[in-house]
């Protein structure tokens, strides 16, 4: 291999800087990134959406020019000889770079030709790749008809067709189900172990950091940390606890989050996970009021604790303000009587031509409950959502929201629903003030009532500092707050949230969930979709969806308990998800065989 002959690390970044011009503004995507990565490592490029991960990937691949700094790949400066770097590099962009009109085999042939793979060596290489990715039986299938996970693996196979020395994977696990995610990590382990490939892997999932050898933690274009995931978590040693108390974990979490000396409190595995400011032990007896039975059990730190700890100082001011507003943002109307089902879905089915997007789905959500729909892209979550909002008529089945049948009384039902779409769906050219005014008018508010509601929203969502800023220019967390404020203008009793937290950093995510918890406490029924496994734990109950069907429904604890095995006494939500999907696949296979 030529790699052995030349010197230099797999990757060297020195003062990497890149800005983009968007409209009249200059946005700095990356600012002063310095890092060195050893050959054969798996390097995790980790940060929320918009952190600059894709820009860095493209710079390394020679697809973008640097404004300042220097990038070396395998000792070659990218700016000087991009072709030489590209010849030794494999790059899988987001959405995998596949030709969806071509079959699996044709995609492989194309990339083999483009990468000058000799014809003689192709049959062996194809066999190897198809076995590794499990795509062997699908060789003549059109790529566009593969599932998300299979596309991801085909994209990877095309990138690996000529074994690269450095492999760049840009968010390969976004929108892919946990089973495929796990398989991808197995393939990566294989590559680094057997071929000595260096892998740069970008992701917004913090839990994937722990699988990497080195982690580059980036946030808003800056490098927050660089080191082994162990080093990140080691500095958090002795600062993480699981807290339990009789007052209920959601209330406990709200109080703990506001407690002095605590920098993070989230619901996890049936407890509240607490991260302390320092290694000084927390005093359970005095930490929070109204919970004399509070118990704190030390636990091992995880990567996310370190990320939050690093982000906190920068946003301490915001946090103080946020907690002053705690515990709960309330809506003026009294809580709905608990117990009665506010959302009732029976045998809901939606077909698009021959394709069944949602198949015989049943669930009921009680007032004040937070109900989660968990699943990969294409599982049918968004279709279900659109039907619940009355935006899409069902093919068959019953839908009742707030006592109204959506098939006959969609309009009155909609008046009780607040909807926050997956994408930012406010008017980007309007200011925060005008968006609030517009959406409140749309919901029929006028005069003093409208003024009061807007004042409420500005105070509640801390929008005062940005009132005259154009919505487009807001930071992502702000946008999300504004979107939620607009969805709440008419004081809906039911809130639909479609992937509300994708792309926002962990701090903004926590703040968002604090508000959602407050709304639920005030009696608002919340239906939320997510593909973040840990967010599923914040729900009262959840349903796991795959291929249009609900595979399992229950409380997070019950779903995880069902996945307990001898070798897995304390399964995570992801373990449980995989177990459920695998059981369904096995049942389907058995059914087909019978």
């Amino acid at each position, binding site marked *: 291999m030529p790699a052995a002959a030349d010197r230099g690390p797999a990757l060297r970044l020195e003062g990497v800087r890149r800005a983009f011009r968007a409209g009249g503004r200059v946005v700095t995507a990356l600012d002063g990134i310095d890092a060195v990565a050893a050959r054969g490592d798996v390097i995790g490029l980790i940060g929320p959406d918009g952190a600059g991960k894709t820009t860095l990937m493209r710079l390394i691949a020679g697809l973008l020019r640097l404004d300042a700094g220097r990038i070396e790949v395998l000792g070659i400066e990218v700016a000087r000889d991009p072709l030489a770097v590209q010849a030794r590099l494999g790059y899988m962009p987001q*959405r995998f770079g596949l030709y969806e009109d071509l079959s699996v085999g044709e995609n492989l042939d194309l990339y083999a030709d483009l990468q000058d793979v000799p014809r003689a060596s192709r049959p062996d290489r194809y066999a190897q790749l198809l076995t590794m990715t499990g795509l062997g039986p699908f060789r003549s299938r059109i790529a566009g008809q593969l599932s998300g996970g299979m596309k991801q693996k085909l994209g990877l196979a095309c990138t690996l067709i000529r074994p690269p020395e450095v492999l760049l994977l840009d968010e390969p696990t976004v929108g892919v189900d946990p089973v495929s995610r796990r398989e991808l990590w197995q393939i990566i382990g294989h590559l680094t172990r057997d071929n000595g490939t260096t892998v740069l892997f970008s992701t917004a999932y913090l839990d994937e950091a722990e699988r990497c050898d080195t982690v580059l933690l980036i946030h808003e274009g800056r490098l927050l940390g660089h080191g082994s995931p162990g080093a990140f978590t080691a500095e958090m040693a002795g600062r993480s606890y699981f807290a339990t108390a009789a007052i209920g974990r959601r209330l406990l979490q709200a109080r703990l989050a506001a407690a002095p000396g605590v920098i993070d409190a989230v619901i996890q595995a049936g407890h509240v996970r607490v991260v302390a400011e320092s290694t000084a032990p927390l005093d359970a007896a005095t930490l929070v009021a109204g919970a004399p039975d509070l118990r704190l059990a030390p636990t091992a730190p995880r990567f996310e604790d370190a990320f939050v700890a690093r982000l906190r100082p920068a946003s301490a001011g915001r946090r103080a303000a946020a907690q002053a507003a705690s515990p709960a943002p309330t809506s003026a109307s009294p809580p709905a009587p608990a117990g009665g089902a506010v959302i009732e879905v029976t045998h809901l089915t939606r077909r698009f031509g021959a394709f069944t997007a949602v198949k015989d789905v049943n669930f009921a959500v009680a007032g004040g409950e937070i109900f989660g729909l968990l699943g990969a892209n294409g599982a049918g979550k968004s279709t279900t959502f659109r039907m619940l909002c009355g935006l899409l008529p069902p093919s068959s089945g019953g839908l009742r929201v707030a006592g109204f049948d959506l098939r006959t009384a969609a309009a009155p039902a909609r008046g009780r629903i607040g909807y926050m779409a997956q994408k930012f769906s406010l008017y980007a050219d309007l200011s925060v003030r005008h968006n609030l005014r517009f959406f409140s008018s749309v919901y029929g508010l006028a005069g003093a009532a409208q003024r009061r509601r807007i004042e409420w929203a500005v105070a509640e969502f801390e929008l005062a500092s940005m009132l005259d800023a154009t919505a487009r220019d807001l930071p992502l967390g702000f946008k999300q707050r504004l979107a939620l404020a607009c969805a709440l203008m008419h004081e809906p009793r039911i809130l639909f949230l479609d992937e509300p937290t994708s792309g926002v950093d962990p701090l903004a995510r926590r703040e968002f969930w604090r508000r959602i918890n407050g709304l639920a406490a005030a009696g608002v029924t919340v239906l939320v979709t997510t593909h973040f496994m840990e967010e599923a734990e914040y729900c009262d109950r959840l349903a796991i969806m795959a291929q249009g069907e609900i595979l399992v429904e229950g409380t997070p604890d019950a779903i995880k308990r069902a996945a307990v095995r001898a070798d897995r006494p304390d399964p995570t939500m992801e373990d449980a998800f995989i177990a459920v999907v695998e059981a369904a696949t096995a049942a389907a296979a058995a059914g087909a065989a019978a």
Partner: protein
Amino acid sequence: MKPAPSRVLALMRKEFLQIGRDPSALAIAFVMPMILLLLFGYGVSLDARNVRLAIVVERPDALTAEFTAEFDHSAYFRARRFLDIQQAERAMATDKVDGIIWLRADFTRRFDAGAGAPIGVIINGVDANTARIVEGYVQQVWAGWLAARAHAAGRGPQPSLAVTAEVRFNRSVSSRNFLIPGLIAMIMTLTGALLTALVIAREWERGTMEALMVTRVRIREILLAKLVPYFVLGMGGMAMSVALAVYLFGVPLRGGIAVLAATSALFMLAALGMGLLISGVARNQFVAGQIAIIATFLPAFLLSGFVFDIESMPAVVRLITHVVAARYFVAILQSLFLAGDIWPVILPNAAALALMAAIFLGLARATARKRLD
């Protein structure tokens, strides 16, 4: 390094596979030209037919009856009689007739006296084009009637009045024969530019371009592999359009097929070059489509002499027409279809096309970068 044939071939094969699987490229190359041809061939005509004519005869007699009967028998007119000029003018004001033929009370007397009989012709000038055509027709009817009368009277043709009109090149005086060759140039402009601009924008949208750029492929290989398949497709569309023109619409093709093929190839290269150039700026299909229509189709439509005569444009606009490739192709096509291989027309226009093709392709190559910014 020279382009590697294996990589170019692989990309071309991919392109043809995609064309086969995604009918949108075939639709642009074949269905769109067919629809445009049928629409223009059957629907749009610059000929005045069934012109609604008001005839006012103030003192009817045998002579006026004989003269006005000419209009009744003409295929171009649908004549209606009105009793007085006021009624006829009202009909024109309400758009019930397009023109008025007005024979005053002294028509027969002055005609017989040989003093030159005045005919009032009033034409609705809102549509100037139709107005001129109607005017011409009326004069032809008048002249024809005079000649026929003189002949019948045995006086022989009167040289002073005889109008000898001979129509050359488009003997049936059908505007279709003139429009369709120009239309083919429009269609080929749109197909060539739209096809390449859209398929490259599609690769940007789907993220495949980004994946291609990190492989060993060179940018000129990507361009070459886009050029060849869509050249073939565009020429296929061209052949189909010519066949439709000749066999369906009966437009004569008087020039040589080889000359037609060679000049079409030059034009297609220029159009594809424009498409490649557009694809360098437009990274999504919507923008690519908009630019292709505004930057190539509209100028070709307005400034190529296809409908609007270049010679009657203001000098500045006439100058601008020189950078519209379609202008040269329209001239070549009209000459090939209606006149034949008229080399003094074909050679300079073909040279201009070759130059434009070289400029557009050269620019496309020079501006293409194996980078995203």
